[in-house]
């Protein structure tokens, strides 16, 4: 039986990338210390914040809410408001939502739910059915996209709307080290290195533009498997089912690739995370993320002519990306 490197008790897991054997207690303490370090490194939460916490019923957001709850109580003067985005994927999100509800009750929070159907007038199931119909009809000018392209755009906008809707100035999302490594790799594989620039690290924009809550990612120093392990050891309810549309995603391919690399070359994911943070500085011309964002603001935000949402102005016809998709899919 292996012993915990820190306290000598029987070890419950092995962290291959540091070659450390840890017991459950030392592992969960280390997990929480990493969340605290993320908070310090990226100045995530401070007194007076109202933080919308995106929970999905999955392991990452469960671990995040638990850690933020402890952190908020320790710091004081921070209000957490759990929010759930219901994409409308029957048999998946409705099942996971029950776990999210259970988690919030366990931790003493009220969960507020926002659905694609209410926000965009179409659920993801309807979006996918319509996409397939239009593709089958061979409608001229219609480009079918993979599910995650639609869902990613809707989700990002929905989370921001929900965060503002509950009066939050910050939005915490459960992106972990795996997610960051995957996004970094995907940007490189798509030849879009500039996307690794000013946005996307754990801290988000320190002073986001009007109409946006600052996105923070408290879990970037923890791996996906560690989030699951943390939930299991803390007896937090979570759902492990897969999205039925995930098979279409490029991210899924990159995820499998990185899991294979991590098995053969432990530490790969954290190496990618550190590379991402270093390259991000380089892409920002040595400037901090804050000044790089300020420079990027020389390009003014546009306002969607349909829904009024602020957007980058890169979409067509004055529409935000969500409205562009809804129009293509004939929901608007």
């Amino acid at each position: 039986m292996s012993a915990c490197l820190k306290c000598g008790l029987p070890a419950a897991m092995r962290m291959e990338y540091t070659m450390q054997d840890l017991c459950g207690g030392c592992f969960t303490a280390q997990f929480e210390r990493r969340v605290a370090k993320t908070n310090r490194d990226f100045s995530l939460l401070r007194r007076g914040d109202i933080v919308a916490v995106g929970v999905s019923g999955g392991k990452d957001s469960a671990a995040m809410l638990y850690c933020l709850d402890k952190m908020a109580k320790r710091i004081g003067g921070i209000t957490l408001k759990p929010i759930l985005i219901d994409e409308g994927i029957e048999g998946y999100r409705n099942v996971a939502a029950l776990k999210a509800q259970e988690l919030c009750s366990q931790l003493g929070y009220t969960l507020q739910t926002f659905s694609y159907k209410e926000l965009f007038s179409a659920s993801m199931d309807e979006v996918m059915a319509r996409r397939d119909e239009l593709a089958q009809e061979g409608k001229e000018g219609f480009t079918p996209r993979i599910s995650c392209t639609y869902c990613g755009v809707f989700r990002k906008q929905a989370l921001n709307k929900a965060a503002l809707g509950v009066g939050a100035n910050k939005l915490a999302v459960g992106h972990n080290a795996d997610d960051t490594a995957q996004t970094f790799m995907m940007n490189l594989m798509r030849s879009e290195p500039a996307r690794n620039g000013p946005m996307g690290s754990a801290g988000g924009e320190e002073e986001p533009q009007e109409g946006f809550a600052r996105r923070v990612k408290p879990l970037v120093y923890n791996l996906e498997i560690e989030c699951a392990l943390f939930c299991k050891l803390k007896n937090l309810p979570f759902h492990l089912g897969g999205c039925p549309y995930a098979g279409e995603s490029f991210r899924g391919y990159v995820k499998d690739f990185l899991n294979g690399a991590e098995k053969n070359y432990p530490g790969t994911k954290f190496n990618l995370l550190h590379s991402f943070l270093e390259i991000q500085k380089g892409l920002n011309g040595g400037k901090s993320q804050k000044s790089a964002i300020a420079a990027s603001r020389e390009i003014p935000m546009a306002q969607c002519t349909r829904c009024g949402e602020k957007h980058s102005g890169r979409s067509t016809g004055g529409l935000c990306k969500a409205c562009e998709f809804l129009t293509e899919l004939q929901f608007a």
Partner: protein
Amino acid sequence: MKIRVSNGLGKTEDEGLELGTTVQDVIDSRNLNGQTLLISVNGKIAHPSTELKEGDELELLGVIYGG
């Protein structure tokens, strides 16, 4: 010796193993990636070096979905 192996999602099978077999041996024999598995023996999180015993219930739950 015989143990019971499950994937945590309802699929369970009995497996005959030699004495001294560890959790890691089972993971390797099934060509699984231990970096994506929540491992528990008899309901408790277990280290891969854990030696299995007659009647143990080993759960190898793949953590590949869900945020």
